[in-house]
């Protein structure tokens, strides 16, 4: 068993805290706000208002659920276009009221289905990316479990992107990669290794800003530590004007894959 695949299994474990656990662990007074105001309320994405200490924040999370029943209700954390549109609605609301947006990412990918295609899954993700890049309020995104491709990035174009120690972030699932490369999904272990999908790999490449240690994961001391980190990061980001903030965010993503020396 490869090291990377061990991490993939950990990231996917049903015993791992989900986005809802993070929300209730870190924030107080969470009030969920439903619906995209266009078509439906996607249960795979939760969002709403909460407090971080004294500060009002908008929180959004891709939720997988714990029990089988709940996981089915939440499509195993695979959002429909409505989920991404709800997230965008809440982000625009946060911008209006100058609230920071904190997002929790945990998905194997955007929902794959006929309805999702009919309602523009690609367009929904594209619009989120475009709008997030110029959102005039601080944004922090944390990959807490699986960061599966475009469906994860749709909440990930943020000022700060963090990953939990055993989270993964990848352009394709190891199984998908293995079936394309070797026509054999069972070679996922090898694929996990070559995809460089761990938090450490992502940090080394400058793709994310910080790896969050999982010491005490799910316990109050863990939430306390995250609360402190978020408060500190928001203090930095809130000191910037909206222009400086969006410029820095643009530069952050603009710099990825720009170095052409080896070309």
């Amino acid at each position: 068993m490869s090291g990377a695949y061990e991490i993939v299994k950990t990231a996917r474990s049903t015993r791992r805290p989900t986005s809802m656990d993070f929300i209730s662990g870190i924030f107080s007074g969470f009030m969920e706000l439903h619906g995209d105001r266009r078509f439906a309320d996607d249960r795979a994405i939760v969002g709403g208002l909460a407090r971080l200490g004294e500060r009002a924040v908008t929180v959004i999370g891709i939720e997988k659920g714990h029990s089988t029943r709940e996981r089915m209700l939440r499509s195993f954390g695979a959002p429909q276009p409505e989920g991404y549109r709800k997230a965008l609605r809440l982000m625009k609301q946060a911008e209006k009221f100058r609230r920071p947006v904190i997002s929790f990412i945990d998905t194997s990918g955007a929902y794959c289905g006929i309805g999702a295609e009919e309602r523009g899954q690609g367009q929904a993700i594209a619009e989120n990316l475009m709008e997030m890049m110029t959102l005039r309020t601080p944004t922090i995104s944390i990959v807490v479990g699986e960061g599966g491709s475009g469906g994860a990035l749709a909440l990930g174009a943020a000022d700060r992107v963090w990953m939990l120690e055993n989270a993964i972030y990848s352009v394709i699932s190891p199984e998908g990669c293995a079936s394309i490369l070797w026509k054999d999904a069972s070679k996922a272990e090898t694929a996990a290794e070559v995809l460089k999908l761990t938090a450490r790999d992502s940090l080394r490449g400058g793709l994310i800003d910080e790896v969050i240690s999982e010491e005490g994961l799910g316990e109050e001391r863990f939430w306390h530590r995250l609360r402190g980190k978020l408060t500190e990061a928001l203090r930095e980001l809130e000191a910037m004007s909206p222009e400086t903030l969006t410029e820095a965010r643009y530069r952050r993503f603009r710099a990825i894959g720009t170095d052409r020396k080896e070309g």
Partner: protein
Amino acid sequence: MSILNFLLQPKNELEAGGRSALPVQGDEGEPEKTCPNCHRSLPLSRLWAQQNTCDCGHHYRMTARQRLSYLADPGSWRELFTDVASLDPIGFPGYGEKLSSARLNSKEAEAVLCGTASVGGQDCCLYVMEPYFMMGSMGTAVGEKLTRLFEYALEHRKSVVGFAASGGARMQEGLYSLMQMAKTSGAVKRHSDAGLFFLSVLTDPTTGGVTASFASEGDIILAEPGATVGFAGARVVEQTTRKALPKGFQTAEFMLEHGFVDAIAPRRGQRALIAKLLHLHEGGKQP
């Protein structure tokens, strides 16, 4: 063979419609291709003369250069950012060889061409993706070239016309590829916020991370008839849902019906349509 026929003759098989149908030797000695739609065989020179479309209206895939030769006013194409080449950021096994053979086969350095041109007398920035370079997949070089093009267009206050043809993000560059979706979206947004016009044309195929980023971010989105346009792969959708896919699922026409495309733009008349749209957006170029 007349001089006209000579000029119109495709230089290789790719230019004559690509691998989707192999040419066969016709009665008169000229290679022909059989249309997958109407099953009629047409000589390559005829296909080439009608912009790689069959008499029945089937649109064959074509190379980026071939598209440029139909699209840009003669002599107006000026290519930009040709020095941008792919890296192997995660040291993916076999990627170096794959890149070399893609370069050799397509005779292009990467899966997108960027530059300036005039189309029907209208100046614009232009990108054309190359489906014969690793299925037009977006890695760091494609992302970087597109980002530079939108930045260039912003600086020079130009409209952007783009032709998408892509299987999505390039797996071999891992998370770096995925991040190009955010990077290009940021560049499109800045261009857009400055009141500038982006016309996105979806050609066969436009899928995955390209559908989920810049290709869906045009002020106006056109699609070529019959082009595959979607996010998730059709086979994956079928396997996940265990349902028969509706007829015409993930085609340009399906996207039109569901409201994600402004119009279907057949190649015949496409150039005039693009010129007209560019002309209609002239006002947006005023600072």
